[in-house]
């Protein structure tokens, strides 16, 4: 995953390719349906889920609305506990800071915990340019890294790969990164997991620098929280001498008590478990236990721009559970790669165009990667109204308007490709405001209906490629009403029906 993805095709083009991949679609369908069913059961165990969801939403809103306050508290608490806090306005600055911190240790390799933030900023690529090898240690991230691939799901990033592909990747690639795959490796998941355990263990045992993200940061206490399943997180957070955590500024929560909400919402929404196997919490450094040096890099990279949008800022509530991916009919068919960023699925469709802006064709197409069915909003544990933000962002793409980019207020122009839609909507608005014009138009359409083409000419052509034009009835509803009821009740005033 690179930072910019300049070469990525827009969502429709990428989805047109991925939807033809039948194996990918079968894998995705199985995965998303399995997780969503399990999740429903795990959530169903808690009678107060709705109350927890409301609390989670409110805690995140409170944090976002006073983010400067909580970031300053967090910085104080982390510093008081022996940590060092760094601030990065964008991806390039975050990468420079981390590279400098790793170089200062004299080490040339680091072990990494799965982290969305470091994927977003392209940290591994930046470290590689500086001659530093970054080893992903989550099993799925390892599969992705060895396969020179990109993650396709927030929770299970290698879900697009099946077991025999994974075996082949391990056989051919493990040797050039470290300990090779055992001879005669089969495609049984237990054997593949064992191969990963052996391959990574030598890296964990000698690692001097660990890099992580965090699921939560507690402003009150300076505590960071990482939830995980495999134990690779614990390895990276505990064994190295230096720990560097790169965390988006929106990951802060006000108080220790607030964790009682999120540690119930996140595991059940994400892996559909009562609790994930391992959760690590650390506050600064601890004498004689774990890293002696702890750096926290607080990352903006478009988050404050998102915060400036009063409708769009709710996307920053996201706790990265991936429940919205698993219920989305578009994600299920298109797969994660089509979204062209670290954040796939419905949440990616509203987060990426806000973090990066809508200047590229890909980013401008993302708000359209949805049927607006609303399933994502239903399952979201912090009640992000994703359809509302999608519609809001579509309006921005079509109409242009005032936004904040890189901290600067700016006005974006309406997207060119939407001129016809904009003209059509303006015309529709004019007609709907004028019943006489609407009536004349409807009657004309009804009389000429035999002459209507099956497909639209000109700029409407693309739209009608994939849709049937609705047939025009012989008589409009308004005329029918007027003829059958209006006369009967002596109520002929058309304006009254408006």
């Amino acid at each position: 995953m690179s930072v910019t993805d300049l070469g990525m095709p827009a969502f429709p083009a990428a989805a047109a390719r991925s939807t033809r991949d039948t194996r990918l679609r079968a894998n995705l369908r199985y995965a998303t349906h399995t997780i969503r069913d399990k999740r429903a059961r795990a959530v169903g165990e808690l009678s107060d889920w709705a109350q927890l969801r409301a609390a989670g939403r409110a805690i995140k809103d409170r944090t976002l609305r006073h983010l400067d306050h909580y970031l300053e508290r967090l910085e104080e608490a982390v510093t008081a506990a022996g940590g060092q806090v760094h601030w990065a306005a964008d991806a390039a600055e975050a990468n420079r800071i981390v590279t400098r911190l790793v170089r200062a240790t004299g080490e040339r390799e680091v072990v990494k915990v799965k982290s969305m933030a470091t994927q977003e900023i392209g940290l591994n690529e930046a470290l590689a340019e500086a001659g530093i090898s970054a080893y992903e240690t989550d099993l799925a991230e390892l599969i992705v890294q060895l396969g020179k691939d990109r993650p396709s799901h927030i929770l299970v990033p290698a879900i697009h790969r099946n077991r025999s592909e994974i075996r082949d990747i391990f056989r051919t690639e493990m040797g050039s990164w470290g300990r090779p795959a055992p001879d005669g490796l089969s495609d049984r998941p237990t054997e593949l997991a064992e191969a990963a355990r052996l391959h990574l263990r030598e890296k964990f045992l000698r690692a001097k620098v660990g890099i992580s993200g965090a699921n939560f940061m507690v402003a009150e206490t300076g505590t960071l929280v990482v939830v995980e399943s495999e134990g690779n997180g614990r390895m990276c957070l505990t064994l190295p001498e230096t720990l560097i955590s790169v965390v988006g500024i929106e990951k802060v929560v006000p108080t220790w008590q607030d964790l009682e909400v999120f540690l119930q919402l996140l595991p059940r929404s994400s892996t559909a478990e009562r609790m994930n196997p391992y959760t690590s919490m650390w506050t600064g450094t601890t004498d004689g236990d774990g890293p002696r040096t702890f750096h926290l890099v607080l990352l903006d990279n478009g988050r404050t721009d998102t915060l400036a949008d009063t409708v769009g800022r709710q996307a920053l509530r996201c706790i990265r559970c991936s429940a919205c991916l698993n219920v989305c009919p578009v994600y299920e068919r298109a797969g994660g790669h089509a979204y062209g960023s670290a954040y796939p699925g419905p949440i990616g469709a509203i987060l990426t165009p806000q973090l990066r802006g809508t200047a590229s064709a890909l980013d401008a197409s993302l708000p359209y990667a949805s049927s607006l069915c609303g399933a994502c909003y239903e399952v979201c544990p912090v009640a992000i109204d994703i359809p509302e933000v999608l519609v809001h962002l579509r309006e921005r793409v079509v109409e242009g308007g005032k936004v904040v980019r890189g901290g600067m207020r700016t006005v974006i122009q309406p997207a060119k490709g939407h001129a016809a839609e904009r003209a059509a909507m303006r015309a529709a608005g004019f007609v709907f405001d004028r019943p006489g014009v609407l009536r004349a138009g409807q009657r004309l359409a009804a009389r000429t209906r035999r002459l209507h083409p099956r497909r639209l000419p000109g700029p409407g052509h693309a739209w009608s490629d994939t849709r049937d034009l609705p047939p025009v009835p012989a008589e409009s509803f308004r005329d029918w009403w007027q003829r059958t009821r209006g006369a009967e009740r002596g109520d002929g005033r058309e304006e009254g029906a408006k």
Partner: protein
Amino acid sequence: MSSRDVVLARVRRALADVPRAAGPEETAVPRDYLRSHGELPTDDIVQQLAENLADYRAIVHDIDAAGLPGLLAHLLGERGSRSVVAPAGLPPEWLADCDLEVVPDVPETTPGELDAVDSVVTGSAVAIAETGTIVLDGSPDQGRRRITLVPDHHICVVRVPEQVVASVPQALERLAPRRPLTWISGPSATSDIELDRVEGVHGPRTLEVVLVTSRAPL
């Protein structure tokens, strides 16, 4: 202008619409969710803990205090462990019946040396019944975080009922944020390959939880 100032200034500009004079309290947080799910009597909470631990593939044992050393010796012997890490504050009588090398938890031990140890025995800080979770907080009977991570076999002793709470909110009330905390719910696991659950990736592949009661068994 430092990047810190840049980011904080951006945040403040972005929040121009928020009435800030009243402070964070202007956004109300409803806390009408439950402190625990169901008002179970203590014995049932311990039972729920045992069931949920087992549901996530931990091996659960019940014993009274007098029987603990014998049980630990039996479990370590059954597994064929030749060495066990013991945190400095582990009650010495716990391993009194064991005939194997006891490796102390000291700062000088390297991760590689720990990797050669077969098992680890610790106490715990608190256990959560609803989620089947045990929490370690680095107290003297639990030791450094790495000793419960690198060896492949972890036996964790929970004193029941006093160390057991029903819920996540009750557990957080008992824990000190300044201590390094590890929450453990079953052995490490992955579902990264076709969602097939595989137990045991990097952490201990076998987790045994001993629920020890000071009362004599009925």
